[in-house]
């Protein structure tokens, strides 16, 4: 068909068409406000974060320990057997150096999001968080890291009770 047609439909506009009033348009805004139930599994996860513990859950049949904890095993569909307090150390599975914020602003010092495999969970099982107290060019996959917590009185029961993960210094 593309060999038979030269003209494909669609009217592309430039940004200037809006600012110069060449076409009609309308701005609108909405703000959805939500109050989500944390759920049983994540609720326990948050309660544990407040006490300075990263929580997972374990399925005996599948011999998997997952994090964040779920109440049902995704693989065998039985209820999980137990919650498991994990360590607050782990290994960097992957990371990025991000120079753009969520609302498309440029920043000079990069944020360092990472997936951190948590010690005590099954291999390749981890959480997303950020790295800190590290130079961007020193970050490596496989690096050992340690959670840095907010002081106990400031914790709210949120993933941000961990400020970031920092490298574990050898020796």
């Amino acid at each position, binding site marked *: 068909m593309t*060999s038979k047609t030269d003209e*494909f439909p669609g009217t592309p506009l430039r940004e200037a068409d809006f600012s110069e009033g060449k076409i009609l348009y309308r701005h609108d805004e909405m703000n959805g406000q939500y109050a989500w139930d944390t759920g049983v599994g994540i609720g326990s996860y948050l309660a544990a974060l407040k006490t300075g513990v990263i929580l997972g859950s374990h399925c005996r049949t599948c011999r998997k320990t997952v994090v964040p904890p779920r109440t049902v095993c995704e693989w065998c569909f039985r209820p999980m057997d137990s919650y498991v307090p994990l360590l607050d150390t782990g290994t960097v*599975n*992957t*990371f990025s150096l*991000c*120079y753009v914020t969520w609302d*498309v602003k440029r920043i000079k010092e990069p944020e360092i999001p990472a997936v951190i495999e948590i010690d005590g969970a099954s291999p390749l*099982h981890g959480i997303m968080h950020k790295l800190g107290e590290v130079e961007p060019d020193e970050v490596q996959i496989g690096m050992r890291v340690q959670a840095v917590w907010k002081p106990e009185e400031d914790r709210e029961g949120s993933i941000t009770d961990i400020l970031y993960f920092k490298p574990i210094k050898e020796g």
Partner: protein
Amino acid sequence: MGMRKVAVVGAGMTKFMRRAQETGKELSWQATRMALESCEMTLDDIEAVCLGTAPDAFDSVHLKGEYLSDGAGAWGKPFMRSYVGGGTGVFAPIQGWYHVASGLFDTVLVVCEEKMSSYYPHAQGAFLTIFDHTTERPLKPNLLWIFALEMNRYMQTYGISKEDIARVAVKNKRNAADHPCALLGDADITVEDVLNSELLAWPVNRLDVSPVSDGAVTIVLAAEHVAKRITDKPVWIQGVGWSLDTAYWTNRDLAYPRYVEYAARMAYEMAGIKEPRKQIHIVEPYDPFDYKECHHLEGLLLADRGQAPQLVADGVSLRDGDMPVCPSGGLLGVGNPIAAAGLMKVAEIFWQLRGEAGARQVPGQPKRGLAQAWGDLMQVGTVVIMGTNP
């Protein structure tokens, strides 16, 4: 298995644009009308409509399926909307396929549309909702994070460099220079251009990413006895597959998309394909980022793990190579209106197998092609295999 044979008999699409004047309804109509005209059918000939369109938030319209339904030709007809993120473009035709294969309908329109420019100032913001609201959003993530994290892991696991991957962006953007609807086609782009483009989230540079776009694509599906009356070159759907992995994306191997493999195996089995590398002549994997084309080729079992970048380096995946990959120009070159992009790939295979792809035509009379899309939180694989034989 008692399923009827289904063919694609017509296709149409709009240009993929950064910002379109048309409303989403008008985009859907333009693509649909073109598709109907391409096979000289009217709306009365159509029995049902399947629409694919990504989250309502992107067009900033609630109940988007219903909103777009008139432009999709669904007035007074059985209508279904489906959506699996970016996988929608190949998922909607699968939905259309089983509408016909089941015997329930003889002719079905499959329409995919996206008008991302309505989300202002940039559709990036809408993607925030992809992250878990309780355990991830408090960290203020953005969409680039998950791609950058996955790309890094892929590169590290197999020792692949940014140059290796940038060649994919170059190939696709050059291919797109021959696509009349393309947004970012560039016949002269080089690997240096890609590597020197603005660093967004290491290892992702600006030219590694496909552009946000507006656009719509429509294809017409027909059962065998009807297809043969409509056109002398129907393109048959030989296999379909789809699979979903866990939403807990930090609990799996990011270097390998096993959900693409599961979907591919389902499609290969249905199509009776035992040696995909020999039996698939054209591949259109989903390429929102350049490394994803490589990632997906491996998941499709068309390259060994970590070996897909070699296909570009060796020229195998160029249009005149042994296994052309993204001859359309892909998302990197043509554009990425989320749901419409995958259907653009299906339409490309349709035109290629009929010898109607113009300047993008793959030589040698290809007989079989595969289109694949991917989406959600890096979870879904959707695959369609099409061929000149039923």
